[in-house]
């Protein structure tokens, strides 16, 4: 499968994502430049983590207007698989491809740690190979990962099975004590109504090698292989 990983100025995990896809998972992966509208025939797109355009004003606010994003939006609307991780998730929300928004962590500080997330639905392009209710160990590293949405949106997310991941404790329970950033209902990731666009705050691309702490992240990418 041919993957495209977008590089915005200020993206940080773009190289790690290419490495993960190419060297660890044996996929074809190219990097897509923010100024380039041409998607070069990729079959899946990754919006990586980092601080696109410095994340000034709001995380992801500026990136959504970059030339490549108009192509990404068209690709997504046509049903192409798009995975946004951390800053990528923020960009997807800012661009309206995913509902809701991400705001400052409740603690007001940046948090880097490994967390457990529970797979809430397997009906997405990036969780098809997970088991529903399965817990994955993934790292988070963000200052603005607190997911918020209004009541109506939350209800719709619930009704349409659009909540993809929740932060949970070791026992798999989505308790407040297992919530690292204050996200509403412990939400760590969501999808659009058709399940082809997934955004999450954790970093599956940093959980693909046992040497570096775990391999659970592989499942997300593998799900997209079809």
């Amino acid at each position: 499968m041919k993957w495209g990983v977008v590089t915005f100025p200020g993206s940080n995990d773009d190289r790690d994502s290419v490495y993960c896809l190419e060297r660890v998972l044996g996929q074809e992966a190219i990097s897509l430049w923010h100024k380039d509208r041409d998607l070069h025939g990729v079959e899946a797109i990754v919006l990586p983590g980092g601080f696109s355009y410095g994340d000034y004003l709001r995380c992801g606010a500026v990136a959504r207007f970059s030339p490549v994003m108009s192509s990404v939006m068209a690709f997504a609307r046509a049903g192409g698989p798009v995975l946004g991780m951390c800053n990528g998730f923020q960009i997807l929300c800012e661009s309206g491809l995913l509902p809701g928004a991400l705001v400052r962590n409740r603690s007001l500080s940046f948090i880097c740690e490994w967390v457990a997330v529970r797979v809430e639905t397997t009906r997405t392009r990036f969780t098809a190979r997970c088991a529903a209710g399965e817990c994955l160990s993934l790292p988070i590293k963000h200052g603005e990962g607190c997911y918020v949405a209004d009541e109506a949106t939350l209800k719709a997310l619930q009704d349409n099975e659009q909540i993809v991941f929740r932060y949970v404790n070791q026992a798999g329970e989505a308790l407040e004590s297992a919530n690292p950033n204050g996200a509403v209902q412990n939400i760590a990731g969501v999808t659009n109504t058709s399940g082809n666009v997934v955004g999450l705050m954790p970093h599956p691309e940093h959980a693909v090698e046992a040497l570096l702490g775990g391999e659970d992240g592989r499942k997300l990418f593998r799900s997209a292989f079809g």
Partner: protein
Amino acid sequence: MASIPVDLQLAHDHGLSTDEYERIVRTLGRSPTFEELGVFSVMWSEHCSYKSSRRFLRRLPTTGPAILQGPGENAGIVDIGDGLAAVFKIESHNHPSFIEPYHGAATGVGGILRDVFTMGARPIASLNSLRFGAIEHPRTPHLVKGVVGGIGGYGNSVGVPTVGGEVYFNPGYNGNILVNAFTLGIAPTDRIFRATAAGVGNPVIYVGSRTGRDGIHGASLLASREFDDKSEDLRPAVQVGDPFIENILIEACLSLMQQDLIIGIQDMGAAGLTSSSVEMADRGKAGIVLDLDTVPTRETGITPYELLLSESQERMLIVAKEGCEEAVKDVFATWDLQAVVIGEVTADGLFRTTWRGEEIVRIPVSALTSQAPAYERPASRPADLTAKQQVDLSALPLPTDYAAVLTSLLTTPNLASKEWVYRQYDFLVGGNTVVQPGSDAAIIRLKESNKGLGISVDCNSRYCALDPYRGAAIAVAESARNLAVSGVRPVALSDCLNFGNPEKPEVMWQFVQAIDGMRAACQALEVAVVSGNVSFYNETDGQAIPPTPTVAMVGIMDAVTHHVTQWFKHPGDLIVLLGETHEELGASEYLAALHHQECGRPPRLDLEREKRLQQVCLRAAQAGLFSSAHDVAEGGLAVALAEACISHPRQTVGVRVTLTGDLRPDALLFGESQSRAIVSVRPADWDQLKALLHTSRLPFSVLGEVGGTDLEIAGYMKIATAALRQQWQTALAQQLTHA
């Protein structure tokens, strides 16, 4: 343009002495212009000229078979095989961080990153070494939060993982905190760039952020003199950084370096445009002329004096090959960065600048560099040191509750978990972090091979205050030991020598002693010093900081899979103490925290024994014999055992041990004898490890085994490890919020 007249008084205001001013007049054969005075004042400042330290720094061993670049460039370089080099340096940003902790620390991180990528290396790991005043001091929490926030704010955004560091609290830093930042990068050995200006007629190109009025005289007036009640006036010297620009500057510079377009490149650090161009000209034995009218500015009305001295961040100076200007500009344009030709390399050996068609600076480059003043300042042993080195243990009551002592040690801010700090840092970006913060050394894998690099920063300044020679030697030894117990072979170090006012003989003595102690340890452990930084004038109202020669050591692992972490893993593993415990409580955390005494001499260091310990650890790690290994440092054996039980990122495990020996129990449990490590080993591997210990004549004792849920030291204590971990983990955050 009417220039400001220069006289001796103005020279004094610039931090120059009468002698120095006269020397300037002699060198030039005339009075300097106002701009020239500014240039001399920064280039001859302690911070840029190393005038008090230069001749002593020569005593440090700086060469070795793997050393490709020792001190003198932007960073040191070590050959790590497979055509790759490790490029690294540590640097201080103390004064700015005290004035504005967030931006001071952030720009410190930015500066050290530039020192590394300017050599062609992609930065892959940062560490930091921090010293704050007493945690109860009213300013401390604000400073800690600001500094940690700034390091994270900048480092995370730039996309370089912060993988380790150290944090200590001591009232000696109440008026002067220390922020030392370290970065390690990787470069191909055949593509290393140096900061040199050569080739007459080659263009000098300015890239990065525009110049503003920030940080004028940061080097000369902020970093090269003491704090006093006037220091508040220096506030405009504070700089604000832009990590986003740094991030793209890294990418742009590294992509520039893929092509054959440039001769040399240097970041504009302290003393900005002046020192970068002068230093490049000096290394290339050339001259440089700059047209200041072409320097990109952020606001109108900036004077040439300000342009020369501004320390605006995220700027680089490049000497390109003639005719390659447009190609260079194209590379930066890809990243929407500006590149402007502002001057050229000349043959006259002069640093010249023009402004509105007039030459306003004309100084021989050598007068600003090799011919700058150098002093052999008087040194004398502090008169009260002998008294401070005394400690009367017989007058010291033995504790009645050893468990309580251990708990209070583990909750002092110095020994408490630093998780509150490092969880604010992205330690994963880059995808190479094998051992994340929380173990003795950080370990980074190299994607290009099976190798790994280990890094540790260390300095016990209480030891250094009570015996700077021994304290500095221990800093080197401990850093190396942290690597060795992790399975990493120490290779080279970068040092950051933080001291008080060198014009005081006692401070100078501390400095020279520390250099000699470092030298002895480096020689014994076969480690070279490849880069470093001296920060003097860490004094407020005449009160100097404890001498703090911070050591950042880098080592190599041939197979990164053999890395060792400090926490116990398997119930049933044997626990073995390598090394010996003596009755050494002098300068210990125990004396300071429990008895409020900072006195006595630091523990003895037998460098030959140390070397053997480290070799054994390396061989055992390579043979896969260790389940865990942890060096014994502050807080002694009991603290090291406790840490091995509770420092695993997710779980705790218990132990049952018996300590023998006829030492005072508090010395046995909490003394800080050197050259020790606590290791755990599977019973099946014990014979092999034992044989190794015998052949290397290293004393050892089997203490007990891993298992259960309590930390049990027979006859002294039994504590539930889960509860202990909870207290240890939350202590720092609690004290910072309730202080």
